[in-house]
């Protein structure tokens, strides 16, 4: 906070002082001195010697108080901001841990997504027949052939039709297994994403509360600072008022 001048704030052109002084130079000097700044003690003593030089001695009497108050304000802000920063850091650390826990599921899902899309929409499917497929095919073919052989129909169209139907079932099962595998992977990924997202929102809400509290704390810190300064000025005002009364009662 710099030097405060009533004149600068309320009567920068000096019109009010001109009017009030009514052209009386002495009155005008008093008003100029009194309103140019508020280091009254210096102003009074130096002004007695040379009223015109008074302005050069005017300074903010709250300088000493101001420096200490500013230091206290900085310290309070540092404490409040440090506390909020620590809280935010802690929340972010927790969120990071949650993200790391879910990351493998999410990453896997994202990498599985193009395959799932290709399976559904069209495109290259990276597929190798499963061992189960090979095994079922081997066992199934053998059983069908044995049954048909026992009927003496091994080379018949009926056997081939049965085999073709079996191959169709087998291919459909294989396709469903592949599809189900990728679909599950992707669903796990969306689940992981949802969990991380929800956790992120909770973190954001909590961080928001910390910021909100910090804002209120800052307001309170500045409010206290302002109240303290005002109180100090009031004390000075009362002292000066007493001084004024004393000087007047001395009668000249």
């Amino acid at each position, binding site marked *: 906070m710099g030097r405060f001048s009533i004149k600068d704030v309320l009567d920068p052109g000096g019109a009010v002082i001109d009017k009030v002084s009514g052209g009386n130079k002495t009155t005008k000097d008093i008003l100029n001195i009194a309103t140019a700044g508020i280091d009254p003690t210096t102003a009074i003593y130096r002004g007695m010697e040379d009223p015109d030089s008074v302005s050069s001695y005017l300074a903010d009497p709250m300088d000493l108080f101001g420096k200490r108050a500013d230091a206290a304000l900085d310290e309070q802000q540092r404490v409040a901001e440090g506390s909020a920063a620590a809280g935010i850091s802690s929340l972010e650390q927790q969120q990071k841990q949650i993200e790391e826990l879910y990351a493998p599921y999410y990453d896997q899902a994202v990498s599985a997504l193009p395959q799932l899309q290709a399976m559904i929409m069209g495109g290259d499917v990276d597929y190798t027949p499963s061992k189960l497929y090979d095994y079922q095919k081997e066992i199934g073919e053998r059983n069908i052939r044995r049954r048909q052989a026992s009927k003496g129909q091994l080379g018949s169209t009926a056997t081939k039709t049965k085999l073709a139907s079996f*191959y169709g079932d087998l291919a459909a099962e294989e396709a469903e297994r592949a599809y189900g595998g990728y679909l599950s992977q992707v669903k796990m990924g969306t689940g992981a994403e949802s969990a991380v997202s929800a956790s992120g929102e909770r973190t954001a809400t909590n961080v928001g509360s910390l910021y909100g509290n910090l804002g209120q704390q800052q307001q309170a810190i500045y409010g206290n600072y*302002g109240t303290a300064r005002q109180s100090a000025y009031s004390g000075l005002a009362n002292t000066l008022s007493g001084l004024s009364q004393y000087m007047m009662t001395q009668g000249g």
Partner: protein
Amino acid sequence: MAFWAAIPMIASTGSGIAGQKAAQDAAISGAESSARIEQMNREYQQKVFDKNIEAQKPFYEAGKTAIDPYARAVRGEGNAMSSGLAQMQKGLLAKDTASMSDYVKNLTSGRLEAEEGEKYKGRLLDLQQIGLGVSGSAGRTASNLGTSLAQSYAREGQTELAARMGEQTALSNMWTQTMDTLSGLPAYYEASKGQQSSRQKPDYGYGSGLNQPYGNNIA
């Protein structure tokens, strides 16, 4: 002497005004500081939202690609055999039935097309639901962001408004105090002169009518 006695009197008023100004400056600084923090808060909320949306995007985009094909499939216009799974099965069956007659091959492919026609719609629906699921999540995230931003702006506005309203009151008080002091000066001088001529003894109390306008009424 009355001349110089007026200086601390006016300075006393000035000091009272300076106190009001200091308190008001501090209130404005507090509001500005609070506003900066709310801005940081909003940036954080936006960052979390953007991050969530970015993570949801691959699923959402994938789901979106299935919307039109599904609509066509429902109308019976889609080509189920173009899907990767249909082609996969077609490839398996082509190898398995390679040595069989065209009759058997046609029978097999006919069955595959019929079955895939139905399964295709179900799979397109699966993909859309994946997109829809994350859309719900995105909606929730957006709603939370909106709430957080609205609350933050409200807090900031409330704080600034209170500070600005206080500023108006403080300015008004400062004017009033200054005007009271200045307008009281002529009477003060006159009274002081009278006191000087009569050589009254000092009166430290506040009983004197001369002192009353400038007594301890500043704070």
